[in-house]
C-alpha cells in the first residue's frame, strides 16, 4: 500500500536540481510528483517517479546520496474541503504528518496527495475505513 519515494541530498549550489532532473530525463525516468525541502545550507529533494529503483541506481552512479522512503498516496476530492476531510481523520487519531505534497497530474475530479506519516500502517487502515482511497504502487507509477 505504500509508494516508494526517492529522496536526494542536495547542496545549496546553483544547478544541483537541474543536474538531477537531467540525469532522470536522460534515463527516461518520469517524475510524477516532487517537493523540495530547503534549509540555509542544503536541500532534500523528494520525488515520485515511474521507476524508483532505476532512479536510485542512476543517481547513485552520478555520485548523489539517495534513499527511498515509504509514503502514502491518497486520492482526494478536488473540491474545497477535500484535503481537510482527510487530515481530520489523521488528526482525530493522533497521527502526525512529517510532510505532504501533491502530484502534478490529476484524474477527473480527483487530486492525489502524498503523505509521510509517523505510523503508515495505521494511517492506511484508518483512511480505508473512512472510505478514502489509498493508491497502490502500480497505480502511482502509471500516473
Amino acid at each position, binding site marked *: 500500500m505504500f509508494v516508494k*519515494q526517492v529522496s536526494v*541530498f542536495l547542496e545549496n549550489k546553483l544547478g544541483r536540481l537541474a543536474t538531477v532532473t537531467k540525469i532522470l530525463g536522460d534515463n527516461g525516468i518520469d517524475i510524477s510528483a516532487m517537493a523540495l525541502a530547503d*534549509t540555509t*545550507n*542544503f536541500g*532534500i529533494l523528494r520525488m515520485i517517479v515511474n521507476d524508483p529503483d532505476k532512479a536510485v541506481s542512476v543517481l547513485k552512479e552520478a555520485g548523489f*546520496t539517495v*534513499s527511498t522512503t515509504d509514503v502514502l498516496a491518497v486520492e482526494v476530492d478536488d473540491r474545497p474541503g477535500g484535503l481537510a476531510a482527510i487530515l481530520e481523520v489523521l488528526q482525530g487519531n493522533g497521527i502526525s504528518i512529517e510532510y505532504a505534497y501533491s502530484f502534478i497530474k490529476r484524474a477527473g475530479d480527483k487530486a492525489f496527495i502524498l503523505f509521510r506519516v509517523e505510523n503508515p500502517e495505521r494511517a492506511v487502515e484508518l483512511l480505508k475505513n473512512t472510505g478514502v482511497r489509498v493508491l497502490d504502487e502500480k497505480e502511482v507509477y502509471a500516473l
Partner: protein
Amino acid sequence: MSKVLGRTDDMLIIRGVNVFPSQIEHVLMDIGGTQPQYQLVVDRVNNLDELEVWVEIDDKLFSDEVRRLEDLENRITREIQNTLGINVTVKLVEPKTIARGDGKAKRVIDKRNI
C-alpha cells in the same frame, strides 16, 4: 634532507588553540559509526581565524527528514566544539565534493595568508 613541506600530523593553530584533524576524525567516527569524508577549511575573517568542517553525507547519515539532518549538523558542531574548545561551523556536503588525492588525503585547506 629535502625541504620541509608540512607537518605530518596536519596540526593547525586556530585562535591560539592547537587543533589536530585526528580529534575531529574521532568525533565523526563516534557519530557516524564509520568515518565520513571530511575537510577542514580555515580562513581569517576580520583578523580572526574561522574553522569550517565539511562533512560528506553518505547513505548512512542521510535522512529524508530535514529535522534529522539539522539535528545531525548541530550534534557534530556541538561535539567538535566540546572537544576542541573553539567555535566551528559545520557544513553538510554532497559526496565527492571533497577532493581525494593519491596517498595523503588533503584534509585541510588553509586560506589564511601567514
